[in-house]
């Protein structure tokens, strides 16, 4: 089926489609990814903090039933396959966006699928922190909120950035999947042209673009995580 993928007429057809459809698709993919990540972080970051701070020995202990409930909800949301979740949350999507079709609509299931994942990533970042540092802050009279905002989060920034990079690249993969059910972007192009109309070259280009975006996100994320980490000795201070 791939035999004459590079035949001249296929190539020129692909170029046409590329020029007409790709700029919008690329834009849709990027904004669905970024917006979903943003919403997911807004929900997942506080949740992840609660999971750590709210423990029995944490800085802001929560009643144990609250913590248990949070954990169960997160686990349930994380175990539902994304495609099923998209269908399940259609009523929510309609209520929030007015429609269940289109890129904006896909942001709702994407955010819902990603925030429990982000909560777990934040939890693991915060657990890496040396507990002695928290105790030291307590010995200086820090309040629980001061410990969270002045110690736990700032000290975890490099690890949080690494983990958010993992999240954004994963969400990018999900946006492509959301193309199957009404979402826009590169995923939709790949499905529509590649799967339904056998234009494999177009599909290939869409996939290659997705790969390139993942590479870029990962490179930027790694760069920031390293650059912002003041524990790394080789980065000498410039006066």
């Amino acid at each position, binding site marked *: 089926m791939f035999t004459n993928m590079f035949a001249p007429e296929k190539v020129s057809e692909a170029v046409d489609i590329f020029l007409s459809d790709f700029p919008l698709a690329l834009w849709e993919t990027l904004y669905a990814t970024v917006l979903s990540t943003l919403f997911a972080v807004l929900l997942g970051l506080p949740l992840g903090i609660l999971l750590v701070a709210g423990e029995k020995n944490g800085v802001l202990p929560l009643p144990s039933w609250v913590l248990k409930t949070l954990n169960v909800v997160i686990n349930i949301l994380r175990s539902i396959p994304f495609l099923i979740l998209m269908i399940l949350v259609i009523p929510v999507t309609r209520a929030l966006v007015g429609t269940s079709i289109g890129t904006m609509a896909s942001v709702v299931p994407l955010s819902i699928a990603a925030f429990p994942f982000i909560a777990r990533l934040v939890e693991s970042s915060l657990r890496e922190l*040396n507990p*002695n*540092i928290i*105790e*030291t*802050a*307590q*010995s*200086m*009279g*820090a*309040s629980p909120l*001061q410990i969270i905002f*002045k*110690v736990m989060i*700032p*000290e975890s*920034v*490099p690890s949080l950035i690494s983990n958010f990079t993992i999240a954004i690249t994963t969400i990018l993969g999900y946006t492509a999947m959301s193309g199957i059910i009404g979402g826009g972007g590169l995923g939709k192009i790949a499905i529509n042209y590649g799967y339904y109309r056998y234009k494999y070259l177009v599909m290939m280009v869409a996939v290659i673009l997705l790969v390139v975006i993942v590479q870029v996100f990962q490179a930027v994320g790694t760069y920031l995580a390293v650059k*912002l*980490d*003041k*524990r*790394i*000795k080789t980065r*000498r*201070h410039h*006066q």
Partner: protein
Amino acid sequence: MIELRHLSKSFKTADATVDALKDINLTIHSGDIYGIIGMSGAGKSTLVRCINMLEVPTEGDVIIDGVNVGELDTKALRDLRRGVTMIFQGFNLLMQRNCLDNIIFPLELAHVDKETARKRALELLEIVGLPDKAQAYPSQLSGGQQQRIAIARALATDPKVLLCDEATSALDPKTTHQILELIRDINRRLSITVIVITHQMSVVEEICNRVAILDDGTVAEEGTVSEVFASPKSEAAKRLVYPDSAESTPAAREGERTLRVVFNGSAVTTSPLIAQMAMDEHIAANILYASTRTIGDGVYGNMLLGFPDDDEIVARATKYLTAGTGIVVMETRPEEQENRKEKGE
């Protein structure tokens, strides 16, 4: 003044209850550099953490300047902690903040305005001798420098008490000596009461005026440093003072004066030192007890030397022996103890 009254602390673990502290009674006067020494697991850290309620005692009271710390509400306890600060073996600096901002941190917690906090932090960098490290990050500093920054941070809120939990245990002998000097200096200049937790006798001998020996959660012995080290009474104290021969308390001859010489990583070897003193100063010391070890290129341990009862000779010997780095000398004749404290030795 810090009073610990009938202080007990037990930890409940899955399979047992650990009595880390059992009915501790201690009084620490303002201006003291008070040593708490004991073997690993004796309960030293637990004790010091009870003083600022990082560990809530199971029973008993901690009273600081008449205030019962256990009765304070959360807010009042946070305020108290600004006046009773702590330094640790692992320094525990914020790794993502530079040194200046680490020192500013407790002031930030106390909502001190930015400009005042900055000025104070710069002053403190000066006090701890690292004025050029304001913008450096902790990972760029040596252990000793990090502990200096931690000390500056602990001083930021003008505390009246400084708690040191094994503050020098991660440092080499020379750096240990420098940090202890700094702590002594702070104690004198800022009249801050210091509580020093350690498992090293040399640390207590170098800076403390009083010492409590903690053994298995109880105070085995308490008193001035010279008292306790010159004539240890409890088994635990003897084990610390004469690590190699717990039973034999050396006896000085009638009319003999004794000097304890503590080697804390000094570069000289011990026997030539005594021989050298005999040649240079014409003082013949009677070696009553010696327990020294060579670790790396430093000598550790202590020695008890007997001298004729002559102030001039004893003074000369003290001066001669103290000249070496990493050597602390103290007179151990009981009636001399109070004088020694006043002279600020």
